[in-house]
């Protein structure tokens, strides 16, 4: 007998996987991007089911609000956005399939050797995770301050580069 939560998880996982498959198999690029949104929503729902409201909200905010939106805008600017008529696979289609299957089997084998593999899910407490602890850990020298600062420097570099590329420099001026 499965509980309501388990049933919900199964349905959600099926929807997420189906959407993920559709991302690569849709003929229309915009449809693929929209399926991607659904798949990301499924991940957010999984976070919510684990009781991690903060991460589920972050998932929606960052991945759907920013990344998926940008992908969709980029896709809408491409040429074959309405209909793609070419064949969807080329001759070497079986090679990535073999690699992916091997990778999946390898991951399962490695993970099943890990002690906590058979553990049932543990949800975060009713009041949700401690966001303040997370924030402190991000700027703590013993925590994650180095990756955090490197990420911000990387983003700053990307922004400067984008501005440099987009700047319209006139010849005579300056």
């Amino acid at each position: 007998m499965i509980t309501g939560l388990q049933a919900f998880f199964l349905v959600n996982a099926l929807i997420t996987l189906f959407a993920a498959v559709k991302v690569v198999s849709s003929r229309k690029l915009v449809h693929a991007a929209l399926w991607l949104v659904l798949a990301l929503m499924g991940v957010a729902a999984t976070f919510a089911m684990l009781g991690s409201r903060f991460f589920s909200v972050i998932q929606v905010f960052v991945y759907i609000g920013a990344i998926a939106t940008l992908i969709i805008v980029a896709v809408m600017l491409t040429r074959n956005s309405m209909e793609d008529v070419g064949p969807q696979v080329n001759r070497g289609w079986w090679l990535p399939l073999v690699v992916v299957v091997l990778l999946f089997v390898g991951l399962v084998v490695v993970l099943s050797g890990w002690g906590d593999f058979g553990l049932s899910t543990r949800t975060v407490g009713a009041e949700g995770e401690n966001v303040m602890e997370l924030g402190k850990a991000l700027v703590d020298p013993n925590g994650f301050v180095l990756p955090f600062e490197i990420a911000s420097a990387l983003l700053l570099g990307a922004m400067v580069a984008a501005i440099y590329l987009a700047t319209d420099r006139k010849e005579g001026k300056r």
Partner: protein
Amino acid sequence: MSFWIDPINFVIAWLKGLLESWGLQPGLVTFVMYLIGAFVTTLLAMLLVVFLIWLERKLIGRVQDRLGPNRLGPWGIFQTFADMLKIFTKEHITPDGADGVAYNLAPVISVGAVLMVWAVIPFTATVVGVDFNAGVLYLMAVGALGEMGVILAGWGSNNKYAMLAAFRAVAQLISYEVPMVLALMIPVMFTGSMSLQALVKEQDIWFIFLAPVAALIFFISSIAEVGRTPFDLVESESELVSGFNIEYSGLKFGMFYVADFLHAFTISLLFAALYLGGWRGPGAEQYPMLGFVYFALKTAVVYFIGILMRASLPRFRIDQMMDLNWKYLTPLALVLVAATAVAGKIVPAEMAGLRLVVMLALNGIIFAAADRLMTRRRSARRQVAQAPRPVAHYVQPAPTDPGD
């Protein structure tokens, strides 16, 4: 708990008891209760829109020296019902060449994204849908879903004007999210929590007094998020016919219309909750329904100001809109966040009076400096192309001969 002190929780407790007496499992009871709560809240919100549309038409009519709706019922109050009936009976049209799924999903997502905000708004001290420690982030995440609705509408319509409007909308909405998040960070810093109920409870002094400039930034950027005048480039009639919803008619257009009005009201709710103390007021802790009245009054004031702005300001050009965001609001908000963080550490929350004075002074100085810089930059950019010349000369009309 008596009915007259807290009627909503009284009804909730009664209903819960009833469901449990039927022998349902506790988990299922909670689920059903949330379902009922969501249904009732959304229903009330949608019904409220009927009144809001009438109110806005009437007020804008008055501002523009017209009467507004005045035929059906007292003060024309039933006009919206007539419009609603008409829109319900219209045919559902999906234009040829439109992308069926995207086209039909867009209005639903637009309305849904606005309604989802209502889940976290604390209406009284005791009535709040979900109160969790990421409420402020949730607001932004749900706003992102609204963008998705606009994109779907613009792309799914298979219309170049709709597509252009969708691009504009995305540019505008993503841009104005930046100062909005920064302005939201300041109340979060004061409170140390991202739950909206905690934000309201912390406001012994309303945050609009502790952070007036942040409140202003939030107000401006939330109007931009709704896309109303002066930020209605998304549906500027003169350039894009009617924007992303050009191909929509009947009930599907009605959904966008409802989403627009509801969104305008929802941002007023949020402003009242975040900066005007929400349900707080004398006696609101003992009598939660009193808090509801205070909240409604505060929201009404903000909403009224929003309507007056809509009625009186002209539309921005797209470069002005972007300038305002990236060159003024975002740097100002960044400076404000840094300065408020430092000042908030120096003057602890216990010294409420001193803190208020320091924060007001800080905000005043920052705003004055920003205003000074803006003015200087504007006058540096302004060039005189040509000496001004009289627009029209009055010429005595030649006398007409009555004999002709």
